[in-house]
């Protein structure tokens, strides 16, 4: 490996992942996955500091990537910018140093930012709803946007009064606050971009070209809230279906940013579609059809959807199989991998699932044995990516190293 130039390494890694996604047998089993807290733990940097000091976050991720050398690099994208979050006083997160300890992942707080009787308003004009209701509720310094005029009424004579509304002091103040946060977020994205360039120069492709959320979670996560959207499936199914149609368009719009990338992976974070949240019938009616439709639209643009399931999805596998072959990657979390392969083999690549508790408390031998078993069974003939079962916060470094190095060694296809 050491003789290869960064360019060669980069090309080899991109090809490996494109091959596995397309169900062509790659040179070996790829190994990569999203890591949350772990790079910072490994680098001895508190997550609070990483969220506040973008250079420090980059440094930690470089340390992690240089040492472990997974095939793809996530970089510091999950170390959200605390300064911007403070400026916006974002209501649906708590984070390190802001309601949580110094070295903890940010955590989401449930809230109902679209009430049941606001479905119609959302359906009529989603952007105006987001502007005048969702932003003020989510970000108190933007409270003045409650007075944002409905731009849809600006046509013909409407613009005259509309502009008066825009000049209202509280609207102006909100816009100034938003602009300041925007500038801070710009600095953060510059840092993310800088990191991507730096890691590419070392031969590491960036793991993502885009992020997205299933339409059901777009409505459920920050608009309705989990309890509310789950109950809506029974209480107001028609409104929910209408909102999901719109959310599907938003999903496609959002994910399309990945089009044209060298490695066009769009990571779709599946929250409420996993086991336990809803019945299979409900999944088949409210969750899957919209996600599938959205993914097909992404696939049409050459994008590779990577559905990252955050818990067991065994009961959803039959649905997952209903996609064109060689176009989708499913990270199946704690799902039985042999079962997943038996349903999805020849249709989609599966990623997973070294148990996180093993990475934390087991030995390198335990990890190697688990990986060997995965490679021997579900790795046969390609269609498999080695990864931890869920996003990594904690591990013994020697265990993670064993997972990656063993896969590189033993996972070579003849």
């Amino acid at each position, binding site marked *: 490996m050491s003789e290869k130039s960064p360019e060669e390494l980069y090309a080899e890694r991109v090809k490996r992942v494109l091959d596995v996604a397309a169900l062509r047998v790659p040179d070996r089993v790829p190994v990569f996955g999203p890591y949350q807290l772990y790079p910072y733990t490994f680098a001895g940097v508190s997550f609070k500091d990483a969220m506040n000091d973008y250079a420090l976050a980059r440094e930690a991720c470089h340390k992690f990537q240089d040492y472990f050398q997974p095939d793809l690099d996530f970089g510091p994208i999950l170390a959200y910018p605390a300064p911007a979050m403070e400026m916006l006083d974002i209501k649906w997160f708590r984070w390190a140093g802001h309601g949580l300890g110094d070295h903890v992942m940010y*955590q989401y707080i449930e809230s109902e930012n679209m009430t049941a009787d606001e479905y119609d308003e959302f359906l009529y004009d989603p952007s105006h709803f987001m502007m005048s209701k969702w932003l003020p509720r989510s970000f108190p310094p933007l409270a003045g946007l409650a007075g944002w005029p409905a731009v849809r009424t600006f046509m013909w004579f409407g613009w005259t009064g509309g502009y008066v509304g825009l000049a209202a002091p509280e609207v102006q103040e909100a816009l100034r606050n938003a602009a300041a946060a925007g500038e801070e977020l710009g600095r953060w994205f510059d840092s993310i971009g800088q990191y991507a360039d730096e890691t590419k120069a070392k031969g590491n492709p960036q793991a993502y070209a885009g992020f997205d959320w299933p339409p059901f979670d777009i409505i459920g996560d920050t608009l309705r809230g989990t309890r509310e959207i*789950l*109950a809506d499936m029974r209480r107001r199914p028609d409104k929910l279906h209408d909102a999901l149609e719109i959310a599907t368009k938003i999903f496609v719009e959002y994910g399309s940013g990945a089009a044209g990338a060298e490695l066009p992976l769009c990571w779709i974070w599946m929250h409420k579609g996993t086991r336990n949240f809803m019945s299979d019938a409900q999944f088949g009616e409210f969750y899957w059809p919209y996600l599938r439709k959205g993914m097909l639209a992404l696939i049409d643009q050459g994008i590779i959807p990577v559905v990252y399931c955050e818990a067991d999805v065994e009961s959803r596998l039959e649905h997952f199989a209903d996609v064109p072959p060689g176009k989708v990657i499913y990270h199946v979390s704690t799902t039985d991998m042999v079962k997943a392969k038996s349903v999805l083999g020849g249709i989609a690549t599966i990623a997973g699932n070294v148990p996180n508790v093993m990475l934390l408390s087991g030995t390198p031998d335990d990890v190697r044995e688990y990986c060997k078993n995965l490679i021997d069974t579900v790795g046969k003939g390609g269609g498999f990516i080695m990864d931890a079962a869920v996003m990594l916060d904690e591990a013994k470094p020697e265990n993670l190293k064993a997972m990656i190095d063993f896969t590189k060694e033993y996972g070579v296809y003849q």
Partner: protein
Amino acid sequence: MKEQLVSAIADMREEEALQLAQQMLDAGEDPQAVLDAGKEAMTVVGDRYEDGEYFLPELIIAGDMLKAIGDMVKPMLQAQASQTEPLGKIVLGTVAGDIHDLGKDVVGFMLDISNFEVHDLGVDVPPEKFIQAIQEVNPEVVGLSGFLTLAFDQMRVTIEAIKEAGLRDSVKIMIGGAIMDDSAAQYIGADAYGPDATAAVKLAKSWTGGK
């Protein structure tokens, strides 16, 4: 009318259920009978959840109906409602550093409708608070919930602290959360892991001698 109420709740006909409950009370029925209907319906809901017919949406709606009916009845109850002896007492909470409540709430709800006395300590619960609650409530069972992988170590620390307080032998400890499994339970030092709320009820029953 009582049977109608039971089936309206159990079949998730929310509006009808609330109307029926109000009608029963308006007609001068014993408020306790209305509450009993709610309880009876919850047994059906619990069974359907266990059978995989119902999931979270139904538990949430059933919980809302039960609460609404409880609110209607409460002012009308003269004396204390007739209390059935609980099967056992349970202290429940999401461990320190973790603020996820949904899984814990579902487990608490299922235990509650299965006639356990549930003491829910909420989220981000430090070991001291578990210890204090165990000393005050004297439960048979402690339930630790956690969604994040930090919960592996936090649960372990919590159980260690319970042990140091000399309380480990007086309680059975079960854990739950999307990323938990039997090997996690072993690492953490819990007595058992339950993959869902049904399993939690079964474990609690097995430990308290309930059927």
